[in-house]
């Protein structure tokens, strides 16, 4: 009974696996959003969710094949320090503490409400960070576990770090083995660093004031062409980088380019018969595209079978001939699929 049960489970697992593979025409991948210091746990989820939506809505990706997760990077003492500064400052200027949170979380931009004190406070805190050292090894270690877990499951990994998250992504990539590096890529956003570890693409907006605070950072290479309310707001991943169409397209397009590409060609599996239904022993099958251009030819074996692979999607035309017998047959070829055909030589004709 237990053996039968085990066999049952095995069958179900195999069927499920085949089904899962069939669902994913490409190799599976996991995109990790790695937040910067300018976020709390909930803001990072908002960024992840927005990134996921942009990817799936624009590219019709299969959510069973491409996962979008986040590797959270807590800001160590930066947020607690900012809160302490905010408690003092809001008491000093007789403002509600909730005003600090609205600005910090970017519920609106700092220019609203004449809150220049806020941007000055954040700028001071940011400039107090040594960006080359601001990687907490314990957090980095956990991130490595997350990435390696995905790799072990056969998935490709794409890191999308924002702001200080870039330091974590670079450090993580540097710790990977050469084999692992082939399957891990970085799409950098608003980096304070002077490099992207895997040499991958980056996007830094000209209007992002915070990114400009770091003099050795990679220079701005894009602009959204819209007036920026304030530097802090325009450093935001969801609020500004995914909001402006230029930066959003750059980021999302780069991610999709790095996804394992699905098979873009199809194939034809066919059998050739004589008019009486018997197998064809010797014959040649030619393959033409819908414009009549020659693509390939196949000499059929004793069983009459033939096979064309690497065929671009088309409504192709098969032409088969044996002696004075010949035929033409139209076949629809789809990407990533094998089309089965049965072709019968049915009339006497003069070969082409």
């Amino acid at each position, binding site marked *: 009974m237990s053996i039968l049960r085990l066999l049952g489970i095995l069958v179900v697992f195999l069927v499920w696996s085949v089904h899962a593979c069939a669902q994913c025409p490409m190799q599976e991948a996991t995109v990790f959003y790695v937040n910067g210091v300018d976020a709390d746990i909930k803001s990072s989820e908002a960024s992840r969710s927005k990134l996921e939506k942009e990817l799936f809505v624009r590219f019709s990706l299969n959510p069973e094949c491409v996962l979008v997760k986040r590797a959270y990077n807590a800001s160590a003492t930066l947020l607690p320090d900012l809160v302490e500064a905010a408690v003092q400052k809001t008491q000093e200027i007789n403002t509600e503490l909730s005003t600090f*949170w609205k600005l910090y979380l970017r*519920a609106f931009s700092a220019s609203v409400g004449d809150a220049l004190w806020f941007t000055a406070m954040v700028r001071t805190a940011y400039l107090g960070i040594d960006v080359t050292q601001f990687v907490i090894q314990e957090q980095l270690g956990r991130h490595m576990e997350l990435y390696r877990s995905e790799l072990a499951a056969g998935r490709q990994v794409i890191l999308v770090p924002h702001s200080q998250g870039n330091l974590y992504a670079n450090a993580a990539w540097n710790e990977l083995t050469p084999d692992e590096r082939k399957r891990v890529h970085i799409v950098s956003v608003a980096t304070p660093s002077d490099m992207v570890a895997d040499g991958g693409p980056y996007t830094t907006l000209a209007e992002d004031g915070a990114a400009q605070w770091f003099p050795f950072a990679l220079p701005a290479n894009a602009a959204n062409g819209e007036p920026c309310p304030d530097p802090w707001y325009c450093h935001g991943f969801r609020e500004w980088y995914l909001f402006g169409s230029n930066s959003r397209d750059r980021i999302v397009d780069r991610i999709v380019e790095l996804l394992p590409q699905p098979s873009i060609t199809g194939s034809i599996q066919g059998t050739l018969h004589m008019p009486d239904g018997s197998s064809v022993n010797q014959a040649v099958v030619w393959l033409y595209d819908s414009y009549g251009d020659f693509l390939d030819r196949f000499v059929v074996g004793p069983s009459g079978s033939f096979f064309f692979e690497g065929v671009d999607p088309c409504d192709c035309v098969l032409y088969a001939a044996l002696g004075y017998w010949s035929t033409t047959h139209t076949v629809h070829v789809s990407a990533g699929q094998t089309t089965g055909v049965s072709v019968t030589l049915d009339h006497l004709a003069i070969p082409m």
Partner: protein
Amino acid sequence: MVMNRKIAVGGLLVVLLIFTGAVYASNARMVWLPERFAPDSLAPGESKEFSVTLQNKGPSTLVTEHLRISVSGDAAPLVSVDRRALPRKIKRGESVPITLMVKVPEDAPMSVVRGEVSLVRYEDEDKERGRENGSHKKKKSFFRNVLPIELTVSSIPLPPDPGEAGKRDLLGIDSNANGVRDDIERYIAFQFPDSEKRRAALSQYAQEEQVFLRDANDKEKTIANAHASKAQDCMYYVFGDIDVAETVRKKMVSEILNTPERSRVYAKADTFLGGQGFEGAPYGQEKTWCSFNVDVLAD
């Protein structure tokens, strides 16, 4: 002779001091209980009676012959007082129940209506000056202690505004024990009076935040709570737009973290989560992360 004059002046001063002191003390020591009248919300068209207490904590009996209970401010049209409730005398230490009758008009909008109940002394100027030109004048003086009123008019049942008392500790006041702080429950209702779904989604979020703050000093629980969090993605489904939902969420979070203690605890708890990996709701299945039946609630 000089001595007698000094004694007379001194005596007069003492009497004057005692008199003014007694009046002052009497004025200062009429106390309302509770110190603030803020009942649960009342729906438009609803009438209800409430009992408050007026206590004489002064040094002497208070004669109420010329006293009236008056309601002022925006609440005046909604609140009336049973005048018969005021006895002729209120002895030292005595407490008198006063009934406030609140009647909300049918067409009253959702609002917070404020005012105050006070004890007022009316003196007939006619008696002092005699009738002049047939006019009848009264001058009034107020006792120092008043009863502030805050009425919430809402068709959505709401707890009273906890005011400053709601900011005294980390978790605030949750008088109806629904897992949402009273001030936040009111905030949500006033933000979205017409959308039951949005209120439900924000309430789910506020409940999670309350638990997050409650456990914020425990690293393991904080991590577990963060992984169990579902309300944010539910909000995205209900609002139908991440950016719109985020603006709403962040403004509410700013209200939740409205004290130094709450802000510090939240910031510290956030540091516990570094290095953790998180997944959101499976794409297209955000609705399943709502703790309520989205389809049956009115939008």
